[in-house]
């Protein structure tokens, strides 16, 4: 029998154990599903939230309402899909289980302070409605950045929902509540209203640069499961087709976390372009705020458009031309127009001076004074343009783009990783009788001096001022985020090594000639270390934690009874 057979995988007992009513499986994928409608009196309003007991604050609800409809509806007859991201209200509890975040690549980690909204908006003429139009959005709200998965799901469920209404949504949510939890590195079957989506969530230990779904025995499956080749990747070529010749500049702007506005004719284009930009620096995590679709109703609108301070490190996707005015003091604005073909090629936008920004009727272009540190890769551009002429499929063009961006980011990041690794103390300096040694501090100058021999020129053909790019990168939130992450990992590694050496040490022998105070101190310190190790899901050799537990109880047992009861009571 197939070991994965049964009620979903893995096993139904686990599901039954963690109280079905709490929607625990559902909430490891989605926060909730919302239906947003246009009410003649209220304007945009939430018609339905599922599960019904999900807690959204009024502020979150208002944001979801505004962000779930295109800014101006007129241009969006038919069905429109796009993505937004909103800030969670202060005081909301974070997601408890961080095992997923430990094992997932940093770029796919669960959001802690934001939600994504994946929107399917339908607008069709309907004479039976007073307004003359049927306007409704089905929105999947999640902490997970699985753009492709959730939009594929919406394509399956949204059209059915608009006909079958609430019972359908109830069914969908109950089916999601039977899904296996998102586990990095595993191929998962996700049943959804009569079809099965098969996905693989990449794992941190995967080689970056592709997450192919393992092809199962594909022969003669009657209703083959729908294989989703990716959870999160976008069609980069489609997203960047109007700005291909400026790819180098856009990559640098994303890498440096520069304040950037993408203005596009539709929420679909602006949200996909923002998400594509964010993903362009993968495997680095984009650590600044980004809003694939942002409107003037957004709670952060004032915060982000204030002129009293420098623009924040945010990437915003907008459609409303009014933003040209609101963002006049921003350093980089990309205005995308409709796709115009110049012969075989999509007409590329030009770089323009910021002073050329005119209100409302501003022409497509990249409005910036930014000069890229690195030269553009002309061979890549030629190759892509030739691909267009030869009608190379969009997926193949995207694969070329993705590979290029990955190699570029890796060339940039490898010297940093190498230097960071050199800051790790030697393993032999970890001893059981001392606190673990600390990671040496990061010195920018010391790092820059390593570049002559082991710089990005080893892996990249691109010429230019790499040094200048690193200097600027050190001041960006993306460096800060990367450094903190690495530092935390290294500190945890030291902590694991320390626990393992303690485990191998002769602790009982040590206690023989020690006073009670010293022994109690040892017990308390060890306990604290164990609690922290478990909370952080620290990866230590099998049995280490259990052995230390056993050790603690045996020393406690050797102490006088009054002390024992005090120690056990804690």
């Amino acid at each position: 029998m197939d070991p994965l057979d049964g009620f979903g995988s893995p096993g139904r007992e686990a599901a039954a154990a963690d109280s079905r009513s709490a929607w625990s499986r559902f909430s490891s994928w989605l926060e909730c599903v919302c239906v947003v409608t246009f009410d003649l009196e209220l304007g945009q309003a939430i018609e339905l939230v599922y599960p019904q007991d999900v807690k959204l604050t009024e502020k979150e609800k208002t944001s979801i309402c505004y962000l779930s409809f295109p800014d101006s509806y007129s241009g969006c007859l038919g069905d429109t899909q796009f993505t937004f991201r909103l800030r969670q209200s202060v005081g909301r509890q974070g997601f408890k289980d961080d095992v997923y975040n430990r094992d997932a690549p940093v770029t796919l980690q669960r959001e802690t302070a934001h939600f994504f909204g994946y929107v399917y908006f339908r607008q069709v003429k309907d004479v039976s409605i007073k307004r003359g139009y049927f306007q409704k959005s089905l929105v999947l709200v999640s902490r997970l950045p699985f753009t492709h998965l959730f939009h594929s799901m919406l394509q399956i469920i949204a059209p059915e929902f608009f006909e079958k209404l609430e019972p359908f949504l109830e069914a969908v949510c109950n089916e999601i509540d039977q899904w296996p939890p998102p586990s990095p590195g595993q191929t998962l079957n996700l049943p959804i209203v009569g079809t099965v989506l098969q996905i693989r969530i990449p794992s941190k230990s995967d080689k970056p640069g592709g997450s192919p779904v393992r092809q199962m025995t594909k022969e003669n499956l009657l209703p083959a499961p729908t294989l989703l080749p990716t959870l999160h990747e976008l069609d980069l070529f489609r997203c960047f087709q109007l700005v291909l010749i400026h790819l180098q500049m856009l990559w640098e702007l994303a890498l440096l976390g520069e304040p950037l506005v993408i203005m596009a004719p539709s929420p679909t284009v602006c949200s996909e372009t923002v998400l594509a930009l964010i993903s362009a620096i993968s495997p680095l995590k984009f650590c600044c705020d980004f809003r694939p679709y942002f409107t003037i109703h957004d709670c952060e609108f004032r915060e982000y458009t204030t002129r009293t301070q420098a623009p924040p490190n945010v990437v915003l996707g907008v459609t409303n031309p009014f933003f040209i005015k609101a963002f006049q003091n921003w350093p980089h604005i990309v205005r995308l127009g409709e796709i115009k073909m110049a012969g075989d090629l999509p007409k590329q936008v030009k770089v323009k001076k910021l002073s050329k920004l005119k209100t409302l009727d501003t022409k497509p272009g990249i409005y910036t004074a930014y000069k890229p540190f690195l030269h553009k890769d002309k061979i890549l551009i030629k190759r892509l343009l030739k691909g267009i002429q030869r009608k190379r499929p969009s997926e193949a063009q995207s694969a070329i783009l993705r590979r290029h961006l990955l190699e570029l980011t890796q060339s940039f990041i490898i010297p940093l990783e190498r230097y960071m690794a050199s800051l790790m103390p030697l393993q032999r300096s970890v001893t059981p009788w001392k606190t673990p040694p600390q990671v040496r501090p990061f010195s920018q100058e010391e790092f820059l001096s390593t570049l002559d021999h082991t710089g990005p020129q080893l892996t990249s053909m691109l010429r230019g001022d790499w040094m200048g790019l690193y200097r600027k990168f050190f001041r960006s939130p993306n460096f800060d985020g990367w450094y903190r992450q690495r530092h935390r990992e290294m500190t945890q590694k030291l902590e694991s090594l320390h626990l393992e050496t303690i485990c191998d040490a002769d602790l009982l022998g040590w206690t023989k000639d020690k006073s009670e105070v010293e022994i109690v101190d040892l017990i308390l310190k060890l306990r604290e270390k164990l609690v922290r190790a478990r909370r952080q899901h620290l990866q230590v050799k099998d049995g280490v934690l259990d052995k230390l537990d056993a050790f603690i109880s045996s020393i406690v047992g050797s102490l006088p009874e009054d002390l024992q009861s005090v120690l056990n009571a804690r």
Partner: protein
Amino acid sequence: MALRELKVCLLGDTGVGKSSIVCRFVEDSFDPNLNPTIGASFMTKTVQYQNELHKFLIWDTAGQERFRALAPMYYRGSAAAIIVYDITKEESFQTLKNWVKELRQHGPPNIVVAIAGNKCDLSDAREVPEKDAKDFADSIHAIFVETSAKHAININEVFVEISKRIPVADAAVGTSVKGFKLGRQASESRRTCC
């Protein structure tokens, strides 16, 4: 050995025992207090049939009226449908006839239909004579069995009968999976009526 995935859906009135049948088939267990299904449950079980492995992808649909409109999503693309009624409830047999009609009109053209008269352990309270149901099933060329999920009667048999009626896979494709070995024999326990 070739592996074939077969989508199977269960249809029928609420409370006739669709989930119990699936539960017995997949886990060989019975819970008299199962909650009514919302939407549908999805389960899989792989069994050996002759020189093939049949992996049943089972969609156990909700019987409640408010979910009725969702049924097409589950029988779409199904290789087989098991329509269940309760032998102690005449009404559930009438509902079954409606399901047959709907499948004939909107279901996949070659769908294998199996009719299961469940709760055959409660023959004292029987309202639907076995012969009536059998005649009806024959008239539409459907598989027919009376079952008891509670006492594990004829549950595996329904699926074996379905396997028998599934058109043979293309011989050329059927043998193409190389080096695939079965770890264990698929379980197939026979139980007889009491």
